[in-house]
């Protein structure tokens, strides 16, 4: 069918209505007082062309699911990391690592028992240690209530095999954090290990349910503290509520158009007695974390950096806070000067390039999976995909 929906008058009326609601919400949320407070909290940091240190980047991806047949689904998770040291000639120079990119195939059926067993086995395979060990040594359960309940494997949510959205997030995030954990365990002291995303713990407020990657994320924080490594997550989106015009605040604070090289710690009611987010809004910073908003370059967006709160407390908020913060963002700035990803840390970009699957690679993986299954005795007919055959995809 030809796509002509957008030409219909009823649709155009709906579009106008939605746009008006968006604008109303935006102006309704506008708060002059918050803007002023925000401007006063913004701090500049110097453009950093010299830095000595190590920085690792991590990213994950996959095919969720790669194939499905009958009541079964096969998910493919991929994650990669890259570790660099500062170098006077090339800026950053990659260090060889023992670990190669992680690739994990997870086969899930409608049987809860099989699913739980297979999913936990994949988690263990990715992390390289038992699920129970992670649960016991992570500080995730200590962040909320009912720590005893949360440390039980039965507290882990095992989505249905067809719930590609939830399974995809769990598998990809676990794979990504597993690579981060390997970097944390092997990188020199003081290394900045960056993951793509945030440190959010979606079920932190619940007493009896949890997600494995929440435990793993906090386990990474624990191990990073123990090893003296800086573990942080960088999200390309600030996630600020509409109505907050942070660029205007930065202009007012720094007195220049298109300001760059500035940061602001996201205020919290507990620490600062005010917040950027409404009470019913998202939890930023996430439980157990401290968040910053940062602008590394005028051409790149305002991004959000999450740090383990315990690390922040001991390493940033102690002593000369401003100096510590300057040092943190100087390192982030330095690793964001690669010509391929100016304004964004290249180690994450490098990891992303290695982990990402092209459509062609996904197709090849799917074909290999099908061929292996056929060789193992499953009928090829089981993999006939009507959507693909009819182009209905």
């Amino acid at each position, binding site marked *: 069918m030809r796509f002509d929906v957008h030409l219909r008058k009823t649709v155009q009326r709906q579009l106008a209505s939605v746009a008006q609601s968006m604008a109303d919400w935006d102006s309704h949320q506008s708060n002059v007082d918050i803007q002023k407070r925000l401007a006063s909290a913004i701090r500049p940091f110097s453009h950093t062309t010299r830095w000595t240190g190590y920085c690792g980047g991590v990213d994950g991806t996959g095919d969720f699911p790669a194939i499905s047949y009958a009541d079964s689904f096969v998910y493919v998770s991929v994650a990669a990391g890259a570790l*660099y040291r500062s170098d006077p000639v090339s*800026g950053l120079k990659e260090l060889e690592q023992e670990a190669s990119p992680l690739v994990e195939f997870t086969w899930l059926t409608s049987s809860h028992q099989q699913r739980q067993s297979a999913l936990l086995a994949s988690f263990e395979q990715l992390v390289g240690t038992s699920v129970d060990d992670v649960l016991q040594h992570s500080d995730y359960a200590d962040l909320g209530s009912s720590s005893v309940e949360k440390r039980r494997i039965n507290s882990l949510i095992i989505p249905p095999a067809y719930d590609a959205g939830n399974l995809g997030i769990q598998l990809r995030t676990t794979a990504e954090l597993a690579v981060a954990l390997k970097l944390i365990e092997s990188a020199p002291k003081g290394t900045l290990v960056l993951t793509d995303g945030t440190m959010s713990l979606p079920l932190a407020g619940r007493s009896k349910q949890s997600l494995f990657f929440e435990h793993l994320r906090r386990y990474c924080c624990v191990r990073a503290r123990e090893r003296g490594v800086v573990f942080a997550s960088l999200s390309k989106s600030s996630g600020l509520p509409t109505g907050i015009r942070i660029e205007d605040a930065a202009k007012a604070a720094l007195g220049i158009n298109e300001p760059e090289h500035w940061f602001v710690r996201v205020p919290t009611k507990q620490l600062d007695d005010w917040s950027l987010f409404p009470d019913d809004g998202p939890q930023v910073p996430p439980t157990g974390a401290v968040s910053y908003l940062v602008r590394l370059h005028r051409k790149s967006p305002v991004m959000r950096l999450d740090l383990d709160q315990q690390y922040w407390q001991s390493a940033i908020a102690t002593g000369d806070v401003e100096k510590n913060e300057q040092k943190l963002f100087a390192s982030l700035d330095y690793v964001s*000067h*690669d*010509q*391929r990803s100016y304004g964004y840390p290249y180690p994450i970009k490098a990891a992303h390039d*290695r982990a990402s699957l092209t459509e062609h690679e996904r197709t090849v993986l799917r074909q290999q999976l099908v061929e292996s299954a056929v060789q193992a005795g499953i009928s090829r007919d089981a993999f006939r995909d009507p959507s693909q055959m009819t182009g209905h995809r």
Partner: protein
Amino acid sequence: MASLEQLVEILGQRFGVLAESSTTQLTVIAQNSDVAIGDLFLLPCRRGPDRFYVFRATEYANVLNRTIDIGDVARNKLTMPDSYFSENLAEEQLVELRGLILGYAQHDQDQDVWLFYRPRRLPQHLTDVFRVDPSRDACGHVVGELLRSQLGSAGLHIGNLLAGEDALTSVPVYLPIAALAHHLAVFGRTGCGKSNLIMTLLHEVLRHNLEVNRGQLIERRASIFAIDPHDEFRTWHSNSGGADGIRGLVTALSEGETEELAAPFYYLTSRDVLDGPLEARVTLSRADITPDDVVSIMDFSEQQVAFARQLFGEHGERWIGRLFAGDVDDPNGDEGGAQFLPGSIAAVERRMGFLAHGATRLVSRFDPDAGLAYQSKLPDILSSLERGRLLIVDTTLLGELEQFLLNTIVARTLFAMRRALRLADTPERLRHELFGVLGVDDENGRIGQRTLADSLWERIENDDVPYLDGTRVRSPDELPVVHILVEEAPSVLNPVRMKFGSVFRDISRQGRKFGIGLGLVSQQVSEIDRGILTQVNTQLTMALGNADERREAVRVASTDIGGFAQELQVLSRGQLVMSTSLRDVALPVQVASYEGTRSRHGW
């Protein structure tokens, strides 16, 4: 014979992977490394029988793996202060090679050999690609095994297969000796190494004859008649402390070999003072010249040609003397014929002026009645060529026309002799045919080139010209292949000169069956008569600076060298593209330095 697996193991580490492929071009993604246009790559493939595809890079580009366009990176580098390009372990900076398949070698199970085929097939998707590393002899041996049928194993060693900028020292490239009779062209701009190539050819022909003489090779001998306008082939670089030229080779022969391969001379010169043995003063007689010879080297009108031919018909070998003596009042004799205007007669006389007594160092007068006997080296030259010799002719003191005339006369007379030989089945018939092709017709009172004919017949009877085996007439196939090098080919072989016919056009068309081949040496391809170019079966194309000449060189090549078109501009000294109808594919070759060749063979 080594299997596909064994050869792959020898090649070592994989260099890249085949990305896109079509019948016109392949694209290979490879690790970032120092590659060059012209580098050779092998692609083992098992789609069908075991095969190795031979790929030659014609262009390449630096690319980045899984990242934004490299142009964006360059823009960032330019506009972003203090930016850098992180050094990754691998896989970030890659090269993308594009090029052509030369062909593929397929393993023949029955014969257990690798046979080479033209590029009618493609390697399968994502085939591994191995680079032929010129610094590793083992790689060269693999190439040698796969390309054996294209490289040749005997004959004239032209040089070594070129892989990028370096030659594969273990992969020699040969031209069969028969190629000399199939006509050969050497194209290249000044300074590209043409002289060294000719020296290599001369050396190889002498080596070939030596091996035949020693019984190491059962094949025909070969002869080369080479005009040397710079007098460099005899002594080559010996005057500056380098290798001696043909002189060094000849003097290194044993006494018996000298007699068999070099006597009575290998070097002819227009100088009066000779430097050593086996050298002689080059002389022709007016009796050796026909009107067709002079028409082939300078402009004549139709009336002038007709007059000259009529004069030759009447006076035969004395026609030039008669012309200069003004004895042309009644050239028509009793039969009558066209009357020629005084202007036409004067014009012919003017054009022939370079042959007047005192104006030429090459041509002697001929008038037995006046005591001017036949003085010419032509019969000896022809005798030598028919016995398998190198003849170098120093023409430094000769005019350009004399040089062209000498080439033309030798070529025409030899061609005439071989035609006579082909037509004869008895000694009597041979004599009749020989005199006939030289214009002697006693029954009709035509003198033609009687003196030359007598002189040649005398040599045939004495076996100095080996046309007779007792009472049996030899076939031209039993005689040496004779190759006549035409330096500055466009001067003689341009379309204007061909207007009234040319012996070179005849030789280009028919010389092959008489065992006579032309060697055209030129900086220009476009100025040579197309009819002749189409008959040339081997082209050795060196660097050509002019785009039109490169296009022409590609057009006239016996095998497709379109893939080399751009490289013809950047070929280094001594590098060439060899295309020959005797092989399936064109090959890039590094001609060995003559200095090196001398020290290798040494005799």
